[in-house]
């Protein structure tokens, strides 16, 4: 599809593009609609929810939200959990990934195979026993309890290992000649090189943490410890009856803002990550 097209083929391309634009617009429509509703007075929404221009306009839904303090509190919980999980996953995965890529140790193949087998253990197979364990340890309703089960991710180790393997050995060998320790090599040479890979893994972890639903639902039962994802679920149950439709929509928009901003800023890393995991 490189050469310039003429006649029917050109019009075909244009038609296809036009259809794509229409589909994309329809795709985005629910999002625009929700943002619109969040900017309308609740009384107006009682009358009609139709329309994509926020008129009459109000930011009251958002100011109420911030005064209420529950939603901001959930947002802070989500930030703590997502940032904590991201940092821990990056630390654990890059260290282990480097060991598998470059270091020699006994039972390397066996340990590697066991890790790969771990890829097949789904959350649903372990969330009940984890719930029992955390109850025994008395750590439910803490940020740590929300973070810990998601730190053991074999996929992160696997991705970092793939990345480290692709780094030319010469870079390390020079340092080895200077008698630099493994830790120096890792921190001074390998980690700075792996910033793109770490960014990608970090983004996916962050998004995953932010949107995690089943585990926070069973672990954080105290409303003060809800993440935004669970918190929103707790207020949306009766939204059809509620008079505060605008407020519910405002909280949904508010809860999505950090993750949407992150997506818009770091899009290319996400695409690179998909290409990386696909092009093995």
């Amino acid at each position, binding site marked *: 599809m490189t050469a310039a097209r003429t006649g029917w083929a050109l019009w075909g391309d244009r038609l296809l593009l036009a259809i794509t634009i229409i589909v994309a617009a329809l795709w985005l429509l629910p999002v625009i609609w929700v943002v619109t509703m969040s900017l309308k007075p609740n009384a107006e929404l009682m009358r009609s929810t139709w329309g994509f221009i926020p008129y009459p306009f109000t930011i009251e839904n958002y100011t109420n939200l911030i005064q209420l303090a529950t939603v901001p509190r959930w947002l802070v919980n989500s930030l703590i959990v997502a940032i904590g999980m991201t940092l821990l996953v990056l630390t654990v995965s890059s260290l282990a990934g480097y060991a598998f890529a470059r270091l020699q140790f006994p039972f390397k193949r066996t340990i590697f195979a066991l890790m790969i087998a771990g890829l097949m253990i789904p959350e649903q197979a372990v969330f009940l026993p984890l719930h029992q364990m955390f109850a025994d340890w008395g750590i439910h309703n803490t940020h740590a309890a929300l973070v810990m089960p998601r730190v*053991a991710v074999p996929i992160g180790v696997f991705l970092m290992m793939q990345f480290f393997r692709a780094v030319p050995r010469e870079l390390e060998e020079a340092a080895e000649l200077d008698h630099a320790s493994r830790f120096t090599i890792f921190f001074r040479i390998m980690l700075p090189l792996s910033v793109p890979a770490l960014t990608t893994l970090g983004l996916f972890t962050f998004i995953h943490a932010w949107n995690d639903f089943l585990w926070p639902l069973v672990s954080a039962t105290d409303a003060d410890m809800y993440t935004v994802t669970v918190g929103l679920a707790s207020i949306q149950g009766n939204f059809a009856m509620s008079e505060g439709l605008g407020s519910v929509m405002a909280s949904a928009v508010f809860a999505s803002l950090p993750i949407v901003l992150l997506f818009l800023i770091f899009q290319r890393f996400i695409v690179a990550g998909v290409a990386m995991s696909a092009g093995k």
Partner: protein
Amino acid sequence: MTAATQTRVLPVAEPRTKVPQSPAKRRDWLTALLFLAPFLVVYLVLLVYPLFLGIWISFRDWDLMGGDYGWIGTLNYQDLWSDPVFWRAAGNTLKFAAMTVPSMTLVALLLALAVQGPGRIRAVCRSIFFLSSVFSVTVVTLVWAMVLSPDRGLIAPVVQFFGGTPFNFLGSPTWAMPAIVVTTLWWGVGLPMALFLASLGSIPKELYEAAELDHASRWSVFWRITLPSIRHTVVLVVVLQIVAQLQIFGQPFLMTQGGPANSTRTLVQYIYETSFRDWLVGYGAAMAMVLFVLMMIFSMLQLWLGRQGDDQ
């Protein structure tokens, strides 16, 4: 290093000169252990141990508060066999996957074909189709429950405009699941689309140029060049989707609570309810094991299909 451990070195590792066991070697092992330790600890404590604990619990009469009323053999599994709600939930889960996986794969491929290539407009469209997958399940279900609402939704006014009567999709045992499938498509199409885009981008340009010289039609170019080139990605997407969709929970749980008349209650929701509403953790764990085995079969299928592809 002994001969036995030598053979355990990964095949990709470069051949190393054989060094006899020495303090330096032992120090290397210690270094490797330090690098591995954090992962091994969390992996064993938070993934492997819970897996075996889960299997253990599934053979016991165990309640939510950790009350353990002893070994009951396979009684939990036998109860499952004769539990109509379990069969309904398992059937719903499979039905849901059967509806979602083909449509998701097809839509993802069509969108990828439509938005691949240069230009700002296509780039913006790519972002839009991917954007919906960063929202959390609660936001997605909130949006779609509103869109589908018969009195305040987005679809009802359009239907009314054309003289129809608004329809309560989520209140209908027939239409609730298709409505949830559409919601899931909107939410999840970004990742498979991106996988297809990566795969489409790696097809050699020369293939298309040759086809152009032959005046091949668009249709035959797709069937003869594009589709064969991305078949591995199609398999990858299908299997990833099967495994992902078997785990469906949030959408029906939040949009229909499993109703109407159990028509959208899925396995994970039933596990959740059995354990956290009815306190029957042993029974829930047995169900979780069934789901685990089901997902494992499909993961194995991926490995097997992947190997088949490599042989060609």
